[in-house]
């Protein structure tokens, strides 16, 4: 008699307890809302398991955001997995680079249905109606930085446990790793797709990459004799402005002991949105608000969620540049954040401005200024020369760093990336031009009339 069809849920990178980056001072309430988004994603994960009657749940690393998350956050995981255990749904958890084994853990009476993987690959059976329907193996990081290829430790168990036929039950490998050594991700437990194929695992439940990605779909694996699947489910909730779009987990449908289908299900409670707005043709600041609000509304309608955190980059010559420059970055950000929150409340939603970057420029003809041969031309030339050389930019940072007194401020300055410094140079150029080209009667920077 063939094994029954079933499904299980694969999630990773929950990053519970993450304080979220990009939160500025005075936005503690927003921070709480963002933090609660991760918790709600966990709730959604539990709901999904119950609704789909999942055979088990796999969490592939970075469940917690740090090695020392507080008790409350750990208790939330305990509560969630305990509730699943109460429903008869076992959980298999591996720890990743954010929450390695050495992390501080509060003591809880974990139900026997909750399994944590150790530093060595461990295997567990999943039984249903007296039969083993799956074996789940996984490994946790012993320390934050693991540069070994942990996939090599996986080998499908030939006869895992006694009387069942190992070839007919699903074999799942849980691994937090960087497949293909993708440079934009931390290079932890690097491995290749061939390494995964060699292990004889039916389904690789991967973690670490925050965007959902199917490396190998059902039947697409590169293993010679048998196919396999390897999937990054992505984070359950986008963590910052770099993680836009839907985030969630995978429901893996198994038929006849083989992966039949992989279904991505969003679990996020909040979407990040990156907006670039041309203010060149705008006549009033209200147009910025209405444009951002319209984008947020569209995002909500598309995602079905009520919460959007948005980063806005304003660009364009002339237009509102003078007004924005006069108000200053802080004032513009406060004003736009409050306006957007107001618009969100009016729409019955929660819209939060993560940040706004004013990249608008005065309505000046750079080419003409450069041709004039005056000081302004020299300034433009100097900015251009500076931006073209990463070394000069780094040198610039080191140079101005000396002027900063507080060490923390110097550290903050030193932590800027080259691209960020380049942006600063551009802004500085605009600022200096505003000052130099402004009429004497004007108090601050602004474009020439």
């Amino acid at each position, binding site marked *: 008699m063939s094994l029954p069809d079933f499904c299980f849920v694969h999630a990773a990178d929950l990053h519970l*307890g993450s*304080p*979220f*980056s990009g*939160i*500025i*001072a*005075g*936005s*503690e309430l927003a*921070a*709480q809302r963002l*933090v609660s988004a991760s918790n709600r994603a966990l709730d959604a994960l539990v709901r999904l398991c119950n609704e789909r009657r999942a055979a088990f749940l796999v969490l592939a690393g970075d469940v917690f955001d740090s090695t*020392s*998350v*507080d*008790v*409350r*956050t750990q208790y939330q995981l305990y509560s969630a997995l305990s509730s699943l255990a109460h429903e008869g749904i076992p959980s298999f958890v591996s720890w990743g680079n954010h929450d390695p084994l050495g992390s*501080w853990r*509060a*003591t809880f009476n974990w139900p026997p249905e909750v399994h944590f993987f150790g530093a060595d690959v461990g295997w567990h059976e999943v039984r249903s109606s007296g039969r083993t329907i799956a074996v789940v193996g996984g490994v946790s990081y012993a320390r934050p930085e693991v540069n070994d290829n942990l996939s090599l430790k996986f080998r499908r168990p030939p006869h895992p446990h006694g009387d069942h036929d190992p070839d007919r039950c699903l074999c799942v490998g849980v691994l937090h790793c960087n497949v293909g050594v993708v440079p934009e991700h931390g290079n932890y437990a690097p491995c290749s797709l061939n390494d995964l194929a060699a292990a004889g695992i039916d389904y690789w439940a991967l973690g670490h990459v925050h965007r959902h990605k199917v490396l190998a779909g059902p039947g697409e694996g590169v293993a010679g004799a048998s196919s396999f699947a390897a999937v990054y489910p992505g984070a359950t909730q986008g963590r910052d402005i770099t993680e836009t779009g839907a985030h969630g987990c995978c429901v893996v449908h198994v038929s006849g002991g083989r992966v039949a289908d992989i279904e991505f299900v969003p679990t996020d409670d909040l979407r990040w949105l990156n907006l670039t707005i041309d203010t060149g043709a705008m006549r009033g600041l209200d147009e910025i608000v209405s444009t951002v609000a319209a984008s947020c509304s569209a995002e909500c309608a598309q995602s079905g969620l009520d919460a959007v955190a948005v980063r806005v980059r304003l660009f364009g010559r002339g237009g509102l540049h003078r007004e924005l420059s006069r108000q200053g970055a*802080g004032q513009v950000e406060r004003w736009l954040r409050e306006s957007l929150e107001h618009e969100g409340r009016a729409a019955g939603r929660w819209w939060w401005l993560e940040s706004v970057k004013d990249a608008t420029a005065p309505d000046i003809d750079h080419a003409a200024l450069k041709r*004039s*041969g*005056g*000081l*302004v*031309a*020299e*300034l433009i*030339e100097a*900015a251009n020369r*500076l931006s073209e050389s990463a070394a000069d930019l780094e040198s*610039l*940072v080191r*140079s*101005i760093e000396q*002027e*900063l*007194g*507080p060490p*923390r*401020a110097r550290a*903050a*300055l030193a932590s800027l990336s080259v691209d*960020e410094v380049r942006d*600063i*140079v551009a*802004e*500085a150029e605009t*600022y*200096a031009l505003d*000052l*130099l*080209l*402004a*009429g*004497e009667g004007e108090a601050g*920077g602004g474009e020439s009339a």
Partner: protein
Amino acid sequence: MRIDSAFIDGYGVFSGQSMDGLADGGVVLFTGSNEAGKSTLRHFFIDMLFGARRRSAPPHPPLRGGAHGGLLHIIMQDGDERSVERSFSGPGRYGACAEVGGMSRELYSNVFAFGLPELVTFEGLTGEEAASRIFSAGAGLGASSYARAKQQLGSAMDSLGTRSSRNRPLNVACDRLSEALERLERIKRQQGRYSELTRDIEAMQLERDRLARLAAQLEADITRLGQLNRTRELWESMETARRELERLKAARVPAYDAILALASRIDALGPALERWLAQVHEATQVQVRLGSASARARDSMLRLGPAWNEARVEAFDTSIEARQLVRDYGERIADADARLRVAQANVEAALRAVQECTRARGDVVAERERHRPESLPDEAVARGRLAAASAARSALADLNAASARLEADLGRLDGATQAAEWAAAARRQAAGMGGLREKLASAFPFMVAVAAAVAALAVLAEGSSAAGAGGATATALLLAAVAAGAGTVAIAQRKTRAGRLNAAIAAEREAASRMQAAAHARATSSEAVAAARRALDDCLAQLAKMGAPLPSGQTAAADALQAALPSALDAIEEQAREHLAVLREIAGLNTRLKRADDSLDEGRGELERRRQELSEAGRTRERAARDWAAWLSRAGMPESTRPDFVLDVFDAVNAVRTSLAEARSASEMLARLKVEIQGFTDEVASVCEALGHDAGAAAAEAAAAATATATTAPPSSDTLAAAVATATTARVPQLVATLADELRKARAAREQLEKAESRFASLSTGFAASYPEATLAEALASHGATTAEQICVELATAERELAAVRESMERLAGEYALLVQEKERMEGADAQLVAEIDVESARQELAAVVRNWAVLAVARRLMDAAVESYETQRQPAVMREASETLHLITGGRWARIVARVAELATIDVEDARGARRSTEELSYGTQQQLYLAVRCGLVREYAKRGEPLPVILDDVLVNFDPERAAATAVALSDLSDSCQVLVFTCHPEMAQAFIRAGKVSAHFELADGQINRL
């Protein structure tokens, strides 16, 4: 900008002085001896342009009168003319005028308007404003200020953070981040406490469980001992009751059992004895009633007669229904007799009424026969004649009226015909001009007019040839007037005749119209007369048809008939009315006859009905008699018996029956009493036998004897008394009393035993209720094994131990609760998360501030770099201009000035061969020439970028040798091409040098407070 003219109202030594023609180009030269007022005049120009210095005394107060101030007339570069008026004693004494374009007083005083003291000090040019201002002017910044930009930049950076200030955003953000990190670290260190809490809580849970078990054991012991203590007294009472019960059981009497077994029967003997004695007495009385009733029955039977016996009496129906039936028969017979008599009287009365009606009808018939004439038309004919006569009368009247209208119409026709003829004659007269007289009358005015006209012409003809022309003319005019008047009359007459003819024609037409109308009316009246006549003929024909007597003539056309017709119609109507009156009287008699016939028929009917009633009453009487006879037959009584007698028989039968019933009742009661009396004696005998009492048997026999006596003895008073005495004196009552006494004793003994049993059972139950069933035996055993004192001691000991355990538990629970609370707080606390958020928030805040600061710092670097590049790669025009000027002044000795404009303090000079010297290495005069050259360069460059300002030089060439002074005068004169140059000097040779340069446009001499143009 050039100063074209100036007026000094009051300033220093100058009062009411004016100058004009200053802006004609070239150099304006002011010469004068020392203290002539050159510097005062220079200051006047500066103060007028830039205002008085603040926080200083008013400049050069007027020494020779006049208001402190003056007026400048200025011509701008674009030709615009302006006036600058300033009073140094008024509110407008401060502030530069707008025409200087934002130039500061200090810069102007150093670069544009200076004397020797300013020239020899180079610091004026190295000031930030001076340098950057000049630099800006040469850097394509238009009206903006490089210095202002740098100042704003510096201010912005300072507002973000300085090394010294702690409350700037940069420092605040750093401090906040430090504090947030420290707080987070503190919280993280506390997280280890969670594991300790978990272990402590587990240990406390074990200790708590142990103490709970110990407390439970002690509570059980206390409960057990407390229960023993509480039930001790009960247990002791129970033991006492148990012993008393055992004693009573041991003293029990066996004979009491037999008595108690018959207790109910013995109890019943007492009341039965009372009933027995009463029954014996009652039996004797019943015997007496039985004898009396039997005697009355026999007597009544004899009164009914020999045919009656007891059986017939019992069978005879004397019920209420039977009695009522007999009474009904009597009433029916009496009622039938009365009805019969009434019916007979009614018949007789009806017969008399019929006879009366017959007589009245005969009277009416006789009277009607008397009133009826021989030939009388019926009513319809009479009414027809009356109506026809009335119609004929109406038709006759219509005929007469129509004839009268016809006559009148004929008259009007004749009149109209005559009027028409008259109108025709008048019209003909008007048309035919009448007779000769009228024609002459009409022609006369015309002729007069012609004659007057001819005469007037003649007079005119005569007058024209004669001397009295004036009189002839007047006469002619008079005649002409007469002619005109006559003509006018003639025309009026002609108009009158035409009017008359028109009127006659109109009258003729109207007469003809009236004649036609009269003819039409006559025709209409003729038709009406004919119609009326036909109507009258119809009426007469109808009357004739109805046999009315009419006069001779058959139609109304006959005048004779019309004349006789009214009287005939009157006769016809009168006859018809008489006939109708007779007919009405006959109709009344017919009505009365009809009523008489109806009364007769009614009386006959009534008579018939009464006769039928009489017959019915007779039949009813017969039926009642027949029914009564049948009843008597059934009752076995003679037919002649009347119902009243039968009712008396009923009473007699009932009396017999009552006596017989009383006798039977007494007999039955006596039998019943006998049975009951026998029953009592039997019960007494039975009880005595059961108890083995010998005396009982004798008493029973006595009772039986008394019973027999009472029920069988003859009903005399003596025997009755004897029977009663026997019964009451017998030994039966004593026996019954004895039995009752023995029973009371037995019951008392049993009750005592039962009370003891009940008490013991109650105590046992109460004790058992104090313990569960399982522990009852143990409790009993414990009570039996211990004393009350031992129980009290053990209980007190257990309670003390329990209190100690509970105290420990409470203390432990408090500590446990605190630990659990702390643990739960840590599980639900978001302090670490809040701290992490705070750290992140502070980090972002710091990053934002640092970034903002970095933008400013980079901006400053960019500006510095731009300046550096500009200075090193593109020598400012100001230096080129200065170099040329120096080259000119020094006669080519020094060819080039090498300077960094932003740092003017490091100016060097190079000769034609490139040999460079620093400023300090130059001679004093050459230094001044260098400085003057630089200022000239600045002025020239400034003039290229902005509004050129006047250059005012106050004896700056005194340290120059004549050669270089002349060259300088040439250079400054050349400068006047770019801007206005005002030169003040007290040295004639200097003045000559400028004059020789050839560009002096105006020369003023200052002396004794006067400004005179030379």
